[in-house]
């Protein structure tokens, strides 16, 4: 079985296989397969639309961590004409679960920071499955402060199951590293635009997620805990992750209703992994616009607006 195809994607994959076969067998043949191909292509499109119109929160959670989903460096490759990765927290180590550096998007200089997952087993281990250790967050903060000194906007791409729960991470102050980023990002004197591209897992995501604009790709998720984690606590079984995903309201559509995010970036039919280039173009267009808008603001206004935005987060009754 192909590990890269989700259960609900199977009908799509089957049609794609058929189409591929048909195209292959039409090669060099005098027979005209054109109408057959067109018919199948239409059917594929129809099926994909049908499936993607009715995705459950759990299915979206699976798409957000799809093995073929584009990662931070994939997007950087598409949106930047230049990117220079910069390493290390200047104190302990370089954490490959977070990448960052200087880049140019349409000629515009930016600091880009994002979680990075690995594609194959070796890379997955090297990237620690996108779970940063404190030095990753400290590297991110170092680069953000550099952006501030050189008046460059900060662009962050969020894609992590969460911060790494390990012995060394605790010893080196995982909590402090996250907390400090939250505090510092709230007062960074340059525009900060954050986009969830895959999994927005908890504090480990938020630690590079405090900004003037927070966007989500259409099939990304953002939550206080993984569905599995929530299920194992509240339902006492990780098997109930499906229920937890529904209950937590972790999809972009639910979160924008509550005013918790600013914009949803549409993904091409079938999800970002079916067309990373178009997804990247959508991302680029939105964030460039947002940066331009934010750069018009006086720094004090920018910071006041950011504080007010954070200040307004929460729902409670006031008697």
């Amino acid at each position, binding site marked *: 079985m192909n590990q890269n195809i989700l259960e609900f994607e199977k009908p799509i994959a089957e049609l794609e296989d058929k189409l591929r076969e048909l195209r292959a067998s039409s090669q060099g043949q005098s027979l005209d397969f054109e109408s057959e191909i067109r018919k199948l292509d239409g059917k594929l499109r129809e099926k994909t639309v049908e499936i993607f119109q009715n995705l459950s929160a759990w299915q979206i959670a699976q798409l957000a961590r799809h093995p073929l989903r584009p990662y931070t460096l994939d997007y950087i490759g598409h949106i930047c004409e230049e990117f220079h990765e910069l390493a290390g927290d200047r104190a302990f180590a370089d954490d490959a679960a977070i990448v960052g550096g200087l880049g140019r998007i349409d000629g515009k200089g930016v600091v880009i920071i994002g979680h990075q997952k690995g594609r194959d087993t070796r890379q997955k281990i090297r990237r620690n499955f996108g*779970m940063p250790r404190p030095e990753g967050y400290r590297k991110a903060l170092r680069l953000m402060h550099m952006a501030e000194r050189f008046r460059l906007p900060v662009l962050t791409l969020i894609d992590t*199951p*969460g*911060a*790494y*729960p*390990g*012995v060394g*991470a*605790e010893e*080196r*102050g*995982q*909590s*402090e590293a996250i*907390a*400090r980023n*939250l*505090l510092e990002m*709230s*007062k960074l004197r340059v525009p900060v635009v954050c986009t969830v591209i895959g999994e927005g*897992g*908890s*504090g480990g995501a*938020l*630690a590079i*997620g*405090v900004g003037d604009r927070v966007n989500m790709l259409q099939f990304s998720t953002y*939550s*206080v*805990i*993984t569905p*599995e*984690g*929530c*299920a*194992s*606590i*509240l*339902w*006492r079984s*990780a098997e109930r992750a499906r*229920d937890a995903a529904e*209950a*937590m*309201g*972790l999809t972009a559509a639910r*979160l924008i209703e*509550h005013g918790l995010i600013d914009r949803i970036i549409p993904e091409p039919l079938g999800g970002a992994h079916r067309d990373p280039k178009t997804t990247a173009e959508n991302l680029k267009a939105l964030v460039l616009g947002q940066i331009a808008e934010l750069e018009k603001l006086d720094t004090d206004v920018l910071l006041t607006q*950011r*504080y007010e935005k*954070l*200040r307004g*987060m*929460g*729902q*409670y*009754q*006031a*008697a």
Partner: protein
Amino acid sequence: MARSSSHSGTRKLETDHDLHPPISDADPMSWLSKLMPKRIRTQGGDKRKVPEGLWGKCEGCGAVLYQPELEANQQVCPKCSFHMPILARERLKQFLDEGTGTEIGAELAPADALKFKDSKKYKDRLVAAQKQTGESDALVALHGRLKGMPIAACAFEFSFMAGSMGSVVGERFTLAAEHALAHGMPLVCFSASGGARMQEGLFSLMQMAKTSAALARLREAGLPFISVMTHPTTGGVSASLAMLGDINVGEPQALIGFAGPRVIEQTVRETLPEGFQRSEFLVEHGAVDLIVDRRQMRDKLADLIAILMRRPRAAAG
């Protein structure tokens, strides 16, 4: 699942983080009833008059203790100095000058924005927690005086859904920080929390950002924030406001960390070192400035704050 308290004097970990695979800033409360010493549940009610309630057992050394004596000792065992849980309101009462303390954000009450339901409805869990604790949510915020100095002080009520931080907790903390800012006074927070409150979804995660942003303003105004971490302080609370003190204080042997030991054990598949994630461990690794015995808390914090606020030292007591 949560174990009952150990008798060795070292605490076993009882946060949610033990229960689930990687990563969460959230917490459970199904295990809460096991966590809660029975004493707390009987305190303050009519049951106080029941003679059996007059005696309790130290969770550290197992000594049988006379309840009024334990209360006078701020729930610290007079025999072995083990720090047992103390109610938020009681803590603040002991900490502030007698007769001072005006509540901040008392009018706020939790809402169920997501209409969250697991095995129980969030609404029902809230009602049960409110009934059990007499609090409307898991943070009590006051402004009052500490040895004559104006101060804002808050404390997490751990017995309210494991002290988890939802919108009301975040808002009260932020209001306390803003009160301190507006009146030029320091802020103290006693944390005891499993982390963010899952039932409020991303709203609760955002409280981490909100409270941290409020602390950034306090910091820029040159007003001290003293964070006292008590047992246990984990998840989203530890990864936001609790670690952001100008001075970070730990209570003896308090469990403080991002993830809980059991999650870490499952992740790394090795036994954790002795004393891992205790206050003493955090001092050794540079995350906590000092450990203060609860009985000296008032004096010690007053001394520290007076220096930071450039005020003369106040007399002990």
